[in-house]
């Protein structure tokens, strides 16, 4: 064999390998980009967005071709903002995700009957639909929204704007702020692994840290040097009457002194005298006063009733 031939073959092989490699890469990133950015609108068809895998939504669109569709997605079209509202996406990523959505269309075409059958199972209450297959084939289009959401799609079933369970407590490799190309990232602990036995909460890390500490699920050190040093816990509730109809706030020193030192809050954040601090939700939302921790690490401000926990005494109406 001559070296001449080897020289000729080599770049071709390289090219082929490259093409295969990038094709696979596109398939992977397209799906990932979809799950992270597009699913919120394109799963349920928000504001006229064409739904993933629903052929009727795509017939006129797919005729335009990948290039034109990608351009539209990059520039924004109708209710869709440029790049779906995420300027961090590169043009290639947008193109990849459009390609992915078109691919899903092709995939969904041949086994149409199978998907119809599945939908039929959900409707088993109506005996008429179950009896004749023709009727099923004719009618499945009008109600795909709810079915799609129940099917474990990455959308929150209660409210599509909230984080779905599949997006909570992600491992560092997939959490969006860690660099997945960094070898160190792979070595970091996964939150789910650490949170496993702890009591659950509805917000924040989805962990009830105070309950976990009480139950002994975690034993965080109080002192760097002395492993056995215990915190000085102060059991003193401060009730703050609030304006309006919200229940009054009960501030428990106990839960706070389990974690913190007096000097963390007094006197810089709160003057240590009842009634001496003018606290407002506005400043808390902006990260001051209680908001120094609540809304950053401690449970967020969406948990109104955790603080506003003391109902006002009922006054007789005139």
């Amino acid at each position, binding site marked *: 064999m001559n070296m001449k031939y080897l020289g000729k073959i080599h770049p071709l092989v390289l090219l082929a390998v490259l093409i295969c490699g990038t094709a696979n890469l596109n398939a992977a990133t397209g799906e990932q980009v979809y799950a992270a950015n597009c699913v919120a609108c394109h799963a349920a068809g928000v504001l006229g967005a064409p739904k993933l895998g629903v052929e009727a939504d795509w017939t006129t669109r797919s005729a335009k071709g990948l290039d034109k569709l990608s351009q539209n997605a990059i520039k924004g079209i109708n209710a869709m903002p440029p790049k779906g509202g995420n300027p961090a996406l590169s043009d290639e990523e947008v193109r990849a995700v459009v390609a992915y959505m078109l691919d899903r269309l092709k995939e969904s075409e041949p086994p149409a009957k199978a998907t119809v059958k599945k939908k039929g199972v959900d409707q088993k209450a109506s005996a008429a639909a179950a009896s004749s297959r023709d009727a099923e084939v004719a009618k499945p289009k009008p109600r795909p929204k709810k079915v799609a959401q129940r099917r474990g799609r990455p959308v929150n079933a209660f409210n599509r704007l909230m984080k779905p369970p599949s997006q909570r407590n992600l491992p560092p490799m997939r959490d969006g702020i860690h660099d997945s190309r960094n070898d*160190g990232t792979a070595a970091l602990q996964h939150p789910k692994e650490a949170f496993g036995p702890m009591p659950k909460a509805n917000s924040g890390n989805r962990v009830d840290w105070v309950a976990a500490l009480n139950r002994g699920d975690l034993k965080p050190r109080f002192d760097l040097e002395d492993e056995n040093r215990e915190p000085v816990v102060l059991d003193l509730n401060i009730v703050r009457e609030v304006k309006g109809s919200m229940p009054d706030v009960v501030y428990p020193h106990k839960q706070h002194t389990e974690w913190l030192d007096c000097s*963390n809050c007094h006197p810089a954040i709160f003057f240590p005298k009842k009634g001496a601090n003018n606290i407002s939700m506005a400043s808390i939302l*902006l990260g001051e006063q209680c908001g120094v921790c609540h809304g950053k690490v401690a449970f967020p401000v969406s948990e109104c009733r955790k603080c506003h926990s003391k109902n006002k005494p009922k006054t007789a109406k005139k």
Partner: protein
Amino acid sequence: MKDDIRKDEEPLQTKELHRNELKTVAAVFLLLMVLLGSLLLSWPSKAEYGDVVINNFSDESGMRPVVFPHWFHRIRFRCKVCHADLGFKFEAGGNDISMLKIIDGEYCGACHNGNIAWSVENCNLCHSGKSGTKTQVHESTLQKLVAPVSK
């Protein structure tokens, strides 16, 4: 005549009352909208609540920014250890942390010295954020309320 005057006065008082009620209703409505808006904007964030990205000098020096996971540390230490004893202020990017200080045993270096936690040789374990990520407390109320500056 007397009756007429009284009739004039009463509606004025009730108007005041109505205005006050309207104000509180408007305030509550506004707060609700803010919370709803915060939920809306919270969608793209996927990292843990309370993850702090520190990018004071990293980008300029060609390092990845630091991601500090609050959840990981609060399993092992109470807030007091870092925020009272080690002098970390409650503000992302508000502490003048540098590698020199860390090697001298200040800030992260109080534990990250090879005795209590991994030492400074393991650059990539802390400097693990995507380059260009701004200093932030991830998923904080403030982050959700303030719209990101478009490029």
